[in-house]
């Protein structure tokens, strides 16, 4: 069977590593790529390569960007005194889509998770603290997900940052429990941002 060929197996495996893709879907995608016109397959592989080469993480906020610093970090009209902390780029994207948030972002690329060996240094929190000081941030909104780890991270950051100079708030969670920001609809997110509370 064609699915047993080593090159095809590698392709199926590559699709399987994508989020939300099971074995059956991976096989279907692989068969699609193999039966589609040759230039379609080339287009796919070239686009993956090019996008990957063009996009880096912003040296200030950690978000994905094609220019460095990213468009949001270099936009003077954005409120530099307000910083929203998210787990992943998808979280920043979801809030951005809501269109009401005017501050800047900081992407942690993870949350505290002792069992997986992720602590403050893995999240490079010293960089976050330095940034808050350097840029004179006054309000930090913690928008980590409503998971056990996301809650603990919010609690920890609030303990580290909240004080006279900086006010720390937690995004209000109409966002479903255990769910990421990227699964919340725009109205929920806007509401969550408005309803933020101090931790």
């Amino acid at each position, binding site marked *: 069977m064609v699915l047993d060929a080593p090159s095809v197996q590698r392709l199926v495996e590559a699709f399987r590593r994508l989020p939300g893709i099971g074995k059956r879907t991976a096989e279907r995608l692989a068969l699609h790529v193999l039966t589609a016109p040759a230039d379609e397959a080339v287009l796919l592989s070239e686009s993956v390569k090019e996008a990957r080469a063009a996009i880096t993480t912003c040296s200030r906020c950690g978000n994905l960007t094609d220019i460095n610093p990213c468009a949001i970090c270099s936009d003077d009209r954005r409120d530099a005194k307000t910083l929203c902390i998210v787990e992943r780029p998808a979280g920043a994207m979801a809030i951005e889509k809501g269109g009401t948030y005017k501050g800047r972002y900081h992407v942690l690329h993870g949350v505290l*998770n*002792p069992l997986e060996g992720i*602590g403050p240094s893995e999240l490079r929190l010293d960089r976050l603290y330095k940034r808050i000081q350097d840029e004179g941030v006054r309000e930090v909104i913690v928008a980590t997900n409503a998971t*056990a780890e996301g809650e*603990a*991270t919010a*609690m*920890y950051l609030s303990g*580290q940052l909240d004080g006279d100079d900086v006010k720390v708030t937690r995004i209000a969670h109409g966002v479903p429990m255990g769910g990421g920001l990227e699964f919340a609809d725009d109205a929920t997110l806007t509401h969550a941002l408005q309803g933020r509370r101090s931790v």
Partner: protein
Amino acid sequence: MHLRRLQCDGFRCLKAIDFSPGDGLTFLRGKNAQGKTSVLESILYAATSKSHRTNTERDLVGKDGDGFRIAVDTQGLERSVKLEAFWRQGIKRFKVNGVALERVSDILGHVSIILFSPEDTALVRGGASVRRAFMDMELSQLSPVYLNALQDYRKALRQRNELLRQPRVSRDLLEAWDPQLARAGSELITQRAAYLEELSELAQEAYRTLSDGEALRAAYKPDVEPGEDLDDLFRQSADNDIRRRQTTRGPHRDDITLTIEGQPARSHGSQGQQKTAALCLRLADLELVKRRNGEYPVLMLDEVFSELDAERVRRLFEYIDPEVQCIVTTTETNPAWNPTGRHATQFLMEAGQLRPI
């Protein structure tokens, strides 16, 4: 709630089983090691995703097999439920009325089954973890809020304990886990206290009936008293936690104290008293579920005749409400033997096969 039909395949030593018990009392007769207990175990597994004899699904697979499949049809007052459990080479799947469950733990609460087995003596003689597991299992079936709190608590506790195992522990990092641990923990304590208060009263009544007036008391023994501020407590015990490298206080250290005639059942009870006490906890749970859900669970009694003397058996079947569907195993294969005084539907189990007699 009534069990209408059990079908299973590949489970333990059982041949393909298709079993439809009676509405009232059903006898599963058969010599030892013919598979009677496995029939009950398969029903319990389909309803709870847990076996009372092992934590490893591999053990539930028949010799030479690589998996098993169980289907259980039940009829409740308001709805009928079909449960399907499937396990093959480490892959576990549960369905309720044909719909696959995202999390296996979502199986809890759909079908209510109570099993009394010889292993239950551990409720009296075993360590605190056995009694905590009993509370957790029963409350998780009664209350989705409890099940959620239990999962949250365990998750945060594992993370906090992992931090405590690290060579240098930061107090700030440790405290980051306390609020959610406290929130979930308080829910567990509140619900356990209410459950035990109700259970104790019912167990006392059952024990009085079965043992001719003796007094059994089952009291909640919380590590942290209900109403105490858990968040504060975690902070206060942090130094000790760091020294001991584990979370030393909290509802994960709760217990139930059992006393018979004022004496600790664990150390002072006779074997007969201990078995009866364990049975009475199950019977109390039967009544408690009836109170909360409005209908009786299915009651399964494994080897109850060899566990109790004739007089207690007679009183037991006076105690059990005739409304309860009750499946009872016995090694007595003579169909005429019936010490319960009730009509029974009868099956004979031989070499993993079940047939009506």
